[in-house]
């Protein structure tokens, strides 16, 4: 018997009585979603910045390699999209659009339609995600309602920069992926 057959047979043999699958109700959400979002993002060690602040930051820091797939910041792109993601290992700043965000935990949903390469938000040294005010929802239940049955090969909720607390529980930002996350709310 194949392992598939034996595993399934072992389960079927138990003749378990089906238990009910609950529906998920709606829950109250924060009254001011932008404020709640900002608060949550700070908790995850990310920051909300304005369009102007971001432009100023880019002007002042002079990131050598910038890739933006956000139309609002298209002019900052100064490199080509490579064939292989490893060639983005030296990417300093990526600016991408997020579809929507959940205020309770600052998580932003992105899928392949936002990602020219799946690796971009992870491999870049610094990450900026742009979201629209009206696309901030209250909690994860609302977020999954928004995702619905959309088909994408890859989707991700990003809620902050790469971080770790594996050394004596001290929080360190910038473990492997992006060392900072800035969110622009338009």
């Amino acid at each position, binding site marked *: 018997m*194949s392992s598939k057959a034996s595993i399934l047979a072992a389960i079927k043999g138990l003749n378990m009585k089906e238990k009910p699958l609950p529906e998920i109700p709606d829950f109250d959400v924060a009254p001011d979603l932008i404020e709640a979002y900002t608060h949550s993002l700070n908790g995850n060690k990310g920051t909300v910045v304005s369009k102007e602040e971001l432009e100023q930051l880019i002007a002042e820091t002079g990131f050598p390699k910038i890739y933006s797939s956000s139309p609002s910041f298209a002019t900052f792109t100064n490199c080509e999209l490579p064939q292989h993601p490893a060639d983005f290992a030296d990417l300093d700043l990526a600016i991408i659009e997020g579809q929507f965000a959940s205020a309770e935990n*600052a998580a932003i949903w992105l899928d392949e339609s936002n990602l020219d390469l799946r690796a971009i938000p992870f491999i870049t040294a610094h990450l900026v995600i742009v979201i629209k005010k009206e696309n901030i929802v209250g909690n994860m239940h609302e977020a999954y309602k928004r995702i619905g049955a959309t088909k*994408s090969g890859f989707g991700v909720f990003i809620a902050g920069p790469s971080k770790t607390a594996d050394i004596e529980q001290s929080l*360190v930002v910038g473990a492997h992926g992006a060392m900072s996350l800035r969110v622009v709310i338009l």
Partner: protein
Amino acid sequence: MSHPENATVFLKDKERAKWHDDTLWIVRQKRDVTIHQIPEWEKLRELASQIKDHTLSKLDFYLEELEKNATANGIKVHWAENAEEHNKIIGKILDEKNCKAIVKSKSILTEECHLNPFLEEKGIEVVDTDLGERIIQFLKQPPSHIVMPAIHLKKSDISDIFHEKLHTEKGNVDPVYLTHAARLHLREKFLQAKVAITGVNFAIAETGEFVVCTNEGNADMGVHLADTHIACMGIEKLIPRRKDLGVFLRLLARSATGQSITNYNSHFRSPSPGKELHLILVNNGRTKQLAREKFRNSLKCIRCGACMNTCPIYRRSGGFSYGSTVPGPIGSILSPGIDLKKYSTLPFASTLCGSCTDVCPVKINIHEQLYEWRQEITKAQGASLKGLSMKLANGIFKSPLAYKVSGKLMRASLKTLPDSIIYNPLNAWGKGRNLPNLPEESFKDWYKKNRNK
């Protein structure tokens, strides 16, 4: 394997033991703070529990759904009856790719299957990319906690091993410095790896996708740079619907560390063009546990680690004292199902305080299952010494006369013989504790004189 012996050794280094206890208690406190910000917390736990109960009750159906939908998405699905088969499947894929080095993000399942030694034997370099896991890999240790694998180590220990392996400055214990050194070291590994292995937090039957949660982003760094992604999951990791993730992602990180969510929650549905995505469904004893009605719902576990952080015994004995892949309360109800004899002391490594059950985001009645395992173990052991004295006790308590005599005798003998051999366990009692002061008369005698004349 004896938990009490291991615990005694752990507690010998008083300072370190206290530090371990305090560190985990802080994690528990962070969890308390966040969950109190969610008014519907208890409702979410109930939902999660019901969703998992439902899934387990139709596990065969959902597994087939998952396979069907995942296959349609272009994922190659494999089934493994046990650890050996799981390792072989991975070995075969690596052979086909002629792959000699892999990166791996955190997966308790691959620990359980002892994948690393298997691959290393084949001459394949395995790099664990979660920082905590990389640290213990350098030290050739297993994880001592399922979420915080290196929680037993101090930064000075980590500094020493990094000095040896990564040539960091001797004595530099700054976590930022050490983490940065690991970042540079692991970057190189990510950029070279052709195959990346990950675990799975949740697999969704309805869509055929699976979700991997990390804070470091190491799973994503691995898989998006590699050509082949192999994901390994126990068959209990399933949930029916995508929207169920809303419930579980709200619970998982809050329970684990007190964060509102992990920073990266990646949903894998199909491979990038030109790449390969494999999903291995592993049994390794899970259907056996499913067959044990009293212990079935231990399979609801989402591996958040909250029961470990809250457990007063885990905090004071460390993960290694359990001698099993999954330590702590949940480990103590899973492991006896794997090897009753080897793990027979684990269900007794608890005061049955019930704190684990109350923190568990999927409402596993952990302490009640510990109690039930005790009954199974004593049955399996037959008339051991402890059993004999307990049977004796039952005889005594059944008969008021015997109870009276033995009580009097005990009180009398305790007065004269503090190390009395009549009631042997009292020796262990007396090591760090005094016995109660003995009253002149029992309540029963008092009552007879004062109320029952």
